[in-house]
């Protein structure tokens, strides 16, 4: 065996070790979940099987045409690009820790084994193999894991089957997460926005209502406000009814009632949405009212309401020290502040966007249904933490309607919703641990590498491990 062969074998051994480690992790997930999880090629239809089947040893054609190709030492990147272009393919990524291997995307969507054969005939290629897809199989769709909500098929963010030209699996793995929990009505999420239509047919049962045991909100300047359904900071009243639709849309993403044969499912089927209004019917508001609403949340938390998350789908490029201070205060009171990174397609590291760029805030970028950074989304490897689906998102709207909207506004409540799921499972988790847990619960996305801190899309199933 010459020296080159030794290195090749070492590299292959390393790949196998990584695959085995991942397969072991999947097996651990399976054991932790009440329903069957197995590893399958994407093209395989559901068939009776044992839980031990692992498709890495199978040779069936794959739904994904992607292949892994190892070019011989000394073949330049320019030559590799020429060769792949000649097959109408594209190098998608170099594989770290497996020298020489490149992930190649076949743009013609040909069968993976055919593509592999093409490459193996080239003198510049040392080896090639299909890029077997390892995934948690969707659970039996006839079970309760799949909600009965009639518009669920259009909720690609929760379960992306490739509908409307999307990428299969480019979702937050909600159906897998729901095997563990669908949320808890003991977790309260504040939606700081244009208010929420708390009478919406798909939200009404998940709205926070001040318990009789809790005294009405009192502020030395504002006086006493009977906050039976939340708080309106614009007129300092007790009515946070939405007159725009934006806040209702965000609320539905977090917690539209799931499994009720109506409309859509939220990331949480059960949760308590605390509606706060500081933006008017046009969808804009001022810093002072935002601060008043956050102070309200902190007060309710101090008085025993289990409000642990503020979802903030708004912002501007103007910095306010006062707003930054009150957000820090919320964090110190164990409240996670999740905020939209902004929609200017700009780098927040260079041109900050607030409140997402403050310390103690989880800043969220938006992905489209093809797992690409949405064309409008801001980014920033230092200042934007995580990404979530945020384009063409279906959710609740005024007057019992449902609409598709786009923006980091829509990505933010996805992350806030996953945070609420985590708290449903781990009620006593600190805000620091919660933030850390979310940051460690992503699927790496090529398009996000070098763009945001985690380089990944939030994965609800991972967050519940």
């Amino acid at each position, binding site marked *: 065996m010459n020296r080159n062969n030794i290195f090749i074998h070492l590299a292959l051994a390393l790949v196998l070790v990584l695959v085995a480690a991942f397969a072991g992790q999947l097996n651990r997930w399976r054991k932790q979940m009440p329903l069957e999880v197995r590893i399958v090629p994407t093209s395989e239809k559901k068939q009776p099987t044992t839980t031990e089947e692992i498709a890495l040893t199978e040779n069936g054609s794959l739904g994904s045409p992607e292949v892994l190709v190892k070019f011989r030492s000394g073949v330049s990147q320019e030559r590799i690009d020429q060769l792949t272009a000649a097959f109408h393919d594209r190098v998608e990524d170099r594989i770290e820790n497996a020298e020489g291997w490149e992930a190649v995307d076949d743009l013609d969507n040909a069968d993976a084994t055919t593509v592999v054969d093409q490459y193996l005939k080239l003198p510049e290629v040392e080896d090639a193999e299909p890029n077997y897809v390892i995934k948690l199989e969707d659970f039996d769709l006839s079970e309760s894991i799949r909600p009965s909500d009639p518009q669920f098929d259009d909720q690609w963010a929760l379960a992306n089957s490739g509908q409307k030209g999307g990428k299969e699996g480019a979702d937050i793995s909600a159906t897998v997460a729901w095997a563990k929990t669908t949320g808890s009505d003991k977790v309260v999420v504040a939606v700081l*926005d*244009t208010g929420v239509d708390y009478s919406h047919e798909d939200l009404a049962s998940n709205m926070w209502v001040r318990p009789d045991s809790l005294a009405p909100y009192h502020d030395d300047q504002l006086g006493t406000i009977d906050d039976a359904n939340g708080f309106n900071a614009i007129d300092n009243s007790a009515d946070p009814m939405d007159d*725009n639709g*934006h806040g209702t*849309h965000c609320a539905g993403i977090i917690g539209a009632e799931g499994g009720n044969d109506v409309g859509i499912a939220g990331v949480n089927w059960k949760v308590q949405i605390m509606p706060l209004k*500081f*933006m008017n*019917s*046009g*969808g*804009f*508001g*001022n*810093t002072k009212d*935002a601060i008043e609403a956050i102070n309200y949340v902190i007060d309710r938390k101090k008085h025993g309401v289990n409000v642990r998350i503020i979802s903030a*789908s*708004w*912002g*501007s*490029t*103007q910095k*306010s020290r006062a707003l930054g201070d009150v957000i820090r205060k919320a964090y110190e009171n164990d409240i996670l502040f999740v905020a*939209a*990174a*902004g*929609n*200017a*397609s700009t780098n927040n590291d260079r041109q900050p966007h607030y409140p997402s760029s403050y310390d103690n805030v989880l800043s969220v970028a938006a992905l489209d249904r093809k797992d690409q950074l949405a064309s*409008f989304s801001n980014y920033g490897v230092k200042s934007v933490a995580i990404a979530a689906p945020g384009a063409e998102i279906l959710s609740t709207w005024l007057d019992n309607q449902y609409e598709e*909207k*786009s*923006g*980091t*506004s*829509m990505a*933010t409540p996805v992350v806030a919703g996953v945070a609420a799921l985590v708290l449903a499972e781990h009620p006593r988790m600190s805000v620091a641990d919660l933030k850390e847990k979310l940051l460690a619960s992503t699927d790496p996305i090529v398009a996000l590498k070098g763009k945001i801190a985690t380089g990944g899309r939030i994965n609800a199933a991972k967050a519940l491990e």
Partner: protein
Amino acid sequence: MPNSKDDAVQQARNDLAKRLKIDAGGVKEKAVEESDFPDMALGAAEDGEMSGQMMTRGWRITLDAEGKSYEYRADKNQVRAYKFKGKNYRI
């Protein structure tokens, strides 16, 4: 709030005339096109203003007056002067 695109254009023309202290007849409509704006303040937030980060469909209105072009942005909820002498204004 404008009732229609034409209403938005008219509100923009009147506002520009007022700001330039000229007769409204001196303000000409150069172009009106549908556009997607990055947020609910149509990418033209005033100082201290926060807005929902949802892509918002509206109209980009370009007006000419005294040999210069001015941009306004509008939707059914609002009309805004965009960077008039460096500042945004909601009218």
